[in-house]
């Protein structure tokens, strides 16, 4: 199974490549008011506004560095009602894909909160790789704020 690997600080994370529509450079974003601080803004993706979140900000409360290797992963996000939306994820060091077997991952112990987006992890010679579940990135509240106000007609 193919994953896109990126880093948050020194930690490595992967997302399922099938969830990713496109990897684009860090484009300029429009301000999205009254949202959580990890929401970086709105990106005009093919004439449709797409909320973009900063993964480093979500995890570490530090804004991702504006360098070439920091990119936006445009992913298919499935909300709590199983509606598909587009979501942008700003991630650092998104320069590589990696092929990993699902069996290599261990289920992690913590799955208490509703947004336990890192549920599986594995180790290789360079350390731990954590699998980020895109669909669990947003809390129910944030999801409502991001997609409720956009009122994007689906289907």
């Amino acid at each position: 199974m193919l994953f896109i690997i990126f880093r948050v600080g020194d930690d490595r994370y992967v997302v399922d490549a099938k969830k990713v529509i496109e990897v684009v450079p860090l484009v300029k974003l429009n301000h999205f008011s009254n949202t959580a601080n990890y929401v970086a803004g709105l990106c005009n993706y093919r004439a449709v506004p797409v909320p973009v979140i900063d993964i480093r900000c979500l995890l570490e409360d530090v804004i991702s560095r504006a360098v070439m290797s920091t990119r936006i992963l445009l992913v298919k996000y499935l909300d709590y009602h199983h509606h598909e939306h587009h979501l942008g994820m700003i991630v650092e060091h998104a320069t590589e894909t990696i092929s990993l077997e699902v069996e290599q991952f261990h289920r992690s112990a913590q799955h208490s909160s509703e947004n336990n987006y890192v549920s599986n992890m594995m180790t290789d010679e360079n350390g731990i790789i954590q699998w980020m579940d895109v669909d669990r990135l947003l809390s129910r509240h944030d999801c409502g704020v991001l997609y409720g106000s956009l009122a994007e007609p689906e289907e």
Partner: protein
Amino acid sequence: MDEQIKNCWSTIGVWGAEDEKCPRLDDVLHCRNCDVYSNAGRSLLTRAIPEDYQDYWTSLLAKEQTRKSHDSLSIVVFRLGDEWLGLPTITIKEISEIRPVHGIPNSQSSVVKGLVNVRGELKLWVSMGRLLSVDKGGDSDTTVLRKNFLERLVIFVKDGEQFVFPVSEIIGTHRIWKENIREVPATAANSIYSHLAGLFELEGRHVGLLDQELLFNSLQRNLV
């Protein structure tokens, strides 16, 4: 990352002039297989984003995606004198260096120039310029050396028959969307236009797409 990149590949690596070679080379054979080299390459991406690059991508992403058409045609584009022409890649068996042509005694055809030896096989050398009435072109600005340097032989194959013809220059293989291929103007009466299936634009040039059937039929008619 502000740290200086250690360019070991140009000191003790394969591009190095020193006698002492990197011990890793025993395993990886070439620097490009070495993770030190690839990591150094990736670290180049750890630089600030140029402003215009960001602007360009912002506007590019905002645009509606152009409709993806799966109807495309792979075309080898070449120059014949002053004319830019293309043939479907599928009809071209090979592109080779210019080889000497051996004349056929008592040949009446103006199109057939002779025989050419391509890897031990004798093939018919035809003059496309003569067939299509294309001038060799006044290569005033190109030197003889450059002219010879660019010339290639194209081996055209159709229904098992092969024809070899020289072209002035090969541009390469391009994938052209069928919707971008325009029709040939009906008023064009030139011999070249009667062999065209369509016209398309490539990097500012107008390229005529040769109709393989017409070309093949025309070649066969002109054999004798």
